């Protein structure tokens, strides 16, 4: 126990001295057990004030300090530096908050001084029981794993790699590009989506510091900030990447035609394929699920025979790789609510009821119709289209309670592009509210609204009835107060954005939280939007919540800058005020393990062990410990009990 405590009482001008009798307080403090020196000063936080503390430490050979002043949130760092420079361990400083929680809130009566004295006494009792603590230094692996090869993942990977750090970009599918690659044009500028994405894809694929893992998944994450070990499982492509020249000779040879995922089933592909002409890497993929060779027996090898460079390898096996990384960026993107969800809109599974992403493929020059809008049932050019917004969004009862953010805009874009392609076509947009809150967005919607032949109808659609090759849309115009029935050739549902499949498993593996809708949870909705609740793991793009391309890119750049901020240090310096186990007392009951919010405690050979980089010192484990074997440094039981004794009497 330290018995050479110095107490320094600040007047804070008149802020404290107005209501607290500082002189009485000093006298009281000087008489407390363990106090070697007590002094007051006008402004302790000023340079002369700090100098005073330093001098007294040296003169009086103090080994712990109590500063009675303002809130510790304001000047802890100031006074820690001051005592440290005088040779006292900074964690032997205690602050008694006699301003915010005493002099400012109570009148100038004896009772206020009385309270201040109690707070000082409490501080002294704690200070006497402090131990010297050293900050924890942790090495830092300056490499990143970015999970998800869409525009968010690409942006984050490029930003980090440009700063000079190696990046592993892990993509589940056979190629990069994500959702953005599927889009035709982007709102509100009508830039061609693949034209602006392709250069980025090429850049990331050629970057010497970026390693791209396609057909790959992260199956396990160990470790913590600065030192993650990420297990990447690589699915076989059955095409040797180095060998494939992308000539495509294998494709006509393949006898198996299947609906392609990239075209949302509106376009076909072979069992050996490349999803789209700009794909990166430009390597073909053999889809064994649809290949004729289902067993180990290879009988149809027509693709292999057609392949001049002999790049097809039916014997490829899954492989695993363990990657060291200091940070992880999750950019797993989004999906849309499946059309089968909407039983009232397509109970007969009408081919001409499609979702917005399918319509993007119909509009896309690289799509199945080369950009000509044709409806799936009979390939005719639709003469009328109904767009149904909020299909599953803003529908807490049967869909998702949230607004999907992008549907108002892409529906307006769809209407405009269709109208340009089919000038005599009729468009009916059924909406509830138009949400166009981006730069140039409202202007874009206004432009679409002004088009002749595009009708915005305020009201939700209850049902679609197939009728004589058309679809009868049952809607309402809530502004007119009349029911609306229109027969159209094609119905496009603006389906709600949902997190990608598999995100729950990834969240479990990476130990990040997900919200009630399945999106990844940010650390703070306003102030820490790109950080997950797990340190060292950052979020980018629609994995965290619905957003459009520009917001996704900004979010990803934000995540990258957080990673770079982390990497700007030589090593991680962690506060030492974390939990500590007295191994002699620990009985290995594991109660602490179950209460720790950070999975920072584990049992090794029957004794609790604290991972110093995961522990954040909340102290939740301590009350759970029956053996009193566990306590957070700086807030240990004996310190708090001494404070209680000092305060309660």
């Amino acid at each position, binding site marked *: 126990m330290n018995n050479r405590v110095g107490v320094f009482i600040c007047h804070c001008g008149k802020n404290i001295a107005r209501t607290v009798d500082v002189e009485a307080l000093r006298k009281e403090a000087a008489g407390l057990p363990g106090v070697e020196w007590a002094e007051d000063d006008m402004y302790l936080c000023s340079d002369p004030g700090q100098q005073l503390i330093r001098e007294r430490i040296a003169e009086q050979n103090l080994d712990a300090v109590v500063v009675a002043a303002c809130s510790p949130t304001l000047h802890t760092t100031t006074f820690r530096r001051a005592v440290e420079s005088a040779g006292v361990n900074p964690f032997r400083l205690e602050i008694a908050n006699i301003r915010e929680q005493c002099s400012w809130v109570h009148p100038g009566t004896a009772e206020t001084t009385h309270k201040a004295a109690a707070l000082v006494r409490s501080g002294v009792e704690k200070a006497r029981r402090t131990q010297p603590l050293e900050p924890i230094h942790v090495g830092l692996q300056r490499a990143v794993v970015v999970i998800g090869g869409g525009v968010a993942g690409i942006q984050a990977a490029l930003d980090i790699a440009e700063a000079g750090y190696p990046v592993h970009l892990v993509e589940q599918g056979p190629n990069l590009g994500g959702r953005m690659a599927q889009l035709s044009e982007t709102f509100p500028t009508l830039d061609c989506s693949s034209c602006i994405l392709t250069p980025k894809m090429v850049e990331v694929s050629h970057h010497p510091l970026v390693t791209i893992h396609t057909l790959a998944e992260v199956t396990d994450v160990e470790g913590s900030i600065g030192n993650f070990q990420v297990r990447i499982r690589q699915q076989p492509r059955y095409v040797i990447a180095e060998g494939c020249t992308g000539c495509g000779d294998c494709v006509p040879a393949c*006898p198996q*035609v299947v609906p392609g995922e990239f075209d949302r089933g509106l376009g076909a592909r072979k069992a050996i394929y490349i999803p789209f002409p700009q794909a990166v890497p430009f390597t073909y993929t053999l889809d064994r699920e649809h290949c004729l060779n289902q067993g180990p027996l290879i009988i149809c090898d027509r693709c292999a025979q057609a392949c001049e460079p002999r790049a097809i390898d039916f014997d490829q096996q899954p492989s695993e790789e363990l990657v060291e990384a200091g940070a992880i960026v999750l950019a797993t993107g989004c999906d849309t609510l499946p059309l089968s969800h909407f039983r009232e809109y397509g109970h007969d599974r009408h081919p001409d009821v499609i979702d917005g992403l399918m319509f993007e493929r119909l509009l896309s020059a690289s799509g199945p119709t080369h950009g000509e809008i044709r409806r799936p049932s009979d390939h005719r050019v639709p003469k009328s289209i109904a767009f149904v917004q909020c299909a599953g969004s803003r529908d807490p009862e049967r869909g998702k309670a949230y607004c999907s953010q992008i549907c108002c805009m892409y529906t307006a874009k769809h209407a405009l592009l269709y109208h340009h392609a089919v000038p005599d076509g009729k468009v009916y947009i059924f909406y509830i509210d138009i949400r166009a809150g981006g730069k140039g967005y409202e202007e874009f919607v206004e432009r679409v609204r002004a088009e002749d032949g595009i009708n915005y109808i305020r009201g939700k659609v209850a049902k679609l009835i197939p009728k004589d090759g058309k679809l009868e849309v049952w809607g309402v115009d809530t502004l007119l107060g009349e029911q609306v029935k229109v027969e159209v050739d094609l119905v496009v549902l603006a389906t709600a954005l949902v997190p990608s499949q598999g995100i729950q498993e990834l969240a479990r593996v990476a130990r990040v939280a997900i919200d009630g809708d399945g999106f990844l949870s940010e650390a703070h909705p306003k102030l820490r939007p790109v950080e997950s609740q797990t340190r060292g793991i950052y979020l980018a793009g629609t994995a965290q919540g619905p957003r459009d391309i520009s917001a996704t890119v900004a979010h990803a750049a934000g995540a990258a800058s957080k990673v770079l901020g982390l990497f700007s240090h030589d090593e991680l310096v962690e506060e030492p005020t974390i939990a500590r186990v007295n191994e002699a007392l620990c009985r290995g009951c594991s109660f602490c393990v179950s209460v720790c919010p950070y999975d920072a405690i584990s049992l090794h050979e029957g004794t609790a062990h604290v991972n110093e980089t995961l522990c954040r010192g909340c102290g939740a484990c301590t009350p759970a410990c029956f053996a009193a074997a566990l306590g957070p440094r700086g807030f240990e039981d004996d310190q708090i009990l001494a404070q209680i004794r000092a305060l309660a009497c």
Partner: protein
Amino acid sequence: MTEHTYWRTPLDLERWPIPRGQVVVLAERCKGCELCIEHCPVQMLTWSADYNAKGYRYPVIVAGREEACIACGYCQSVCPDFAIYVEIRLPSPEAGSCMTGS
């Protein structure tokens, strides 16, 4: 009604030519093991009504499925008696389309 996500007929099927083949059966070599009929991925083979000289039924093409052969070569690969083979016709866009797979 399929629950498969992508159940619509792709709009560009005709753009995806499928290699075509012509199955040739050497009936007299066949000893009726059924492997070719069993393995044909487009189910275009069935038993003949009559018997060959050895007294076996042999594979014949299902009526109406003459054009179904995708020249995969399964039948000739599995035939233990070299009694069936496929002549490959070059894929052509107008060869017609038949979507296979699930």
